[in-house]
């Protein structure tokens, strides 16, 4: 056993090619970014050593703080929505849905396969208000809720919510399928037994399902977190970060700073910050796992 599983040659063969590729293409550029973050300007153009100046600038930068706030709000809303609704749907599939199970699960999963650019362009039209009401506003107006008709992605108060709704719509099917699989793994007898003991739905979930689902919930939260912390493409496709800076994320700000402002050095600081935020966030989520 030991001899087979300790085969050094096999281990090397299994690990080293991937390790080299991964190191050169993923890790090296990250280190490179850290090195860039000590410089001012843009490589090839003005490019001067700046030491830690870029880092000092970071927390004085109003635009950076604004982007951070937007990004954190987005993470909170979308994470809760994707994982919460995913779980809700999975429970619905498992316990209530009787007919057309497969078709419906398939349909719910479907938006996951759509290209982000396409979804963005689609939702621009759904939220439209001028020249014609888009899908959402025309429905509201037809069912007598004219008061609620508004420029969903055109005002700071609703733009982030509208964007989050879109991203939740896209991904909730994905999470529901994962949760559904986990629910299927829970033996029916446990649930039946609990029901006989007079457990109601809420208690059943709280005392039986939730603890059993805990590891999978945490995995899903990490997925969702690492996805939302990188918030970029969907916001670009739907609102371009607007109106104003209402939906401008850290990644978008970094992109602007690096490529439009020509400050690759300062942009790299933001990139490094996003990376650290990602690690810190995942670490916190994983904490909940270990306590158990």
């Amino acid at each position, binding site marked *: 056993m030991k001899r087979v599983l300790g085969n050094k040659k096999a281990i090397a063969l299994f690990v080293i090619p991937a390790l080299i590729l991964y190191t050169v293409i993923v890790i090296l550029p990250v280190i490179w970014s850290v090195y860039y973050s000590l410089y001012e300007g843009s490589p090839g153009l003005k490019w001067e050593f700046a030491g830690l100046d870029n880092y000092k600038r970071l927390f004085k930068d109003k635009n950076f703080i604004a982007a951070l706030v937007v990004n954190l709000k987005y993470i909170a809303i979308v994470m809760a929505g994707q994982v919460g609704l995913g779980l809700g749907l999975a429970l619905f599939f498992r316990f209530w849905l009787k007919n057309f199970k497969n078709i419906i699960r398939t349909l719910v999963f*479907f938006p996951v396969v759509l290209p982000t*650019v396409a979804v963005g362009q689609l939702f621009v039209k759904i939220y439209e208000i001028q020249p014609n009401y888009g899908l959402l506003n025309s429905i509201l107006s037809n069912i007598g809720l004219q008061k609620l008709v508004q420029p969903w992605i055109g005002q700071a108060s609703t733009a982030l919510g509208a964007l989050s709704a879109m991203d939740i719509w896209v991904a909730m099917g994905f999470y529901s*399928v994962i949760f559904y699989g986990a629910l299927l793994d829970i033996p029916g007898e446990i649930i039946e037994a609990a029901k006989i003991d007079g457990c109601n739905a809420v208690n059943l979930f709280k005392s039986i399902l939730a603890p059993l689902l805990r590891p999978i919930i945490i995995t899903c939260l990490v997925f969702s977190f690492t996805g939302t912390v990188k918030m970029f493409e969907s916001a670009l496709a739907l609102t371009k970060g607007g109106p104003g800076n209402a939906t401008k994320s850290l990644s978008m700000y970094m992109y602007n700073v690096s490529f439009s402002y020509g400050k690759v050095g300062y942009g790299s600081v933001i990139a490094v910050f996003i990376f650290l935020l990602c690690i810190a966030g995942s670490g916190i989520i994983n904490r909940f796992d270990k306590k158990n």
Partner: protein
Amino acid sequence: MKRDKIKLKSILINLFTTVLVIVEVYPIFWMVTASLKQPAEFVNKPAYALNDGFYIKNYIDAWTRGNMATFFKNSLINTLAALIFIVFFSVTVGFAVTKMDWKYKDKVAKYFGIGIMVPIATALIPLFQIYNKLNLINTRTSLILAYIAFGLSLSIYLITGFLRSLPDEILEAAVVDGCGIYKLMWNVVVPLMKNAIVTVLVLQFFFKWNDLLFSMTFINDTKLKTIQTGLLYFQDEFGSKNWGAIFASVSMSVIPMLILYMILNKAVIEGMTAGAVKG
């Protein structure tokens, strides 16, 4: 009394199901009708109106002007090539860091885990320079390599999660029967991981098929561009948009996904549900 309650419950369930299906499907149905509308219809008619006729010119525009055929081919080649390697590497690495016996395996697993957190935009400029030095700009290889490398972390994470839940006894039995490591891998581990592999395949397919940033940055040659960049063909200098052609090209880019999904649908859902993610 009780019967009424059950009846009410089933009505509620059906109602919810209907709403759910509409919410999921209607936008896509709408997109297809929109792709058949003339430019004026977008302005003059309400959004929910069906297309007046079948304005096929949108599709012709998208196909001819947008070089969609070439883009399709490119996306397909890049994606498939990357997927093969991702699956291969994630299974071998995943197995090595969970079931095999060596000193640094936990450290290596953690090291691969870092990749999940790396924002793609961070790597863009340095990567461009690396590629430039290696003379890889404007080649399929550049994209395929980036796809593989950035796909590894999540895939390995998924595979290791699955392997950890795999009882060691199965492996032991196989070894006792005289299996060497490669035979063990191919004949025992891979078949057991079918579901996990399908999950990785499907997830990574969507990610790679949807890539925009890499192909935008590394590929200059129109002949090598991918389908997502094609979707950008319809934006003019002063922000004007040809919505009909946009939705036509979007519909076209979605159709292969749909077909693939319909074919694989059962395996996908099974793969995903049959405990692919066992954290």
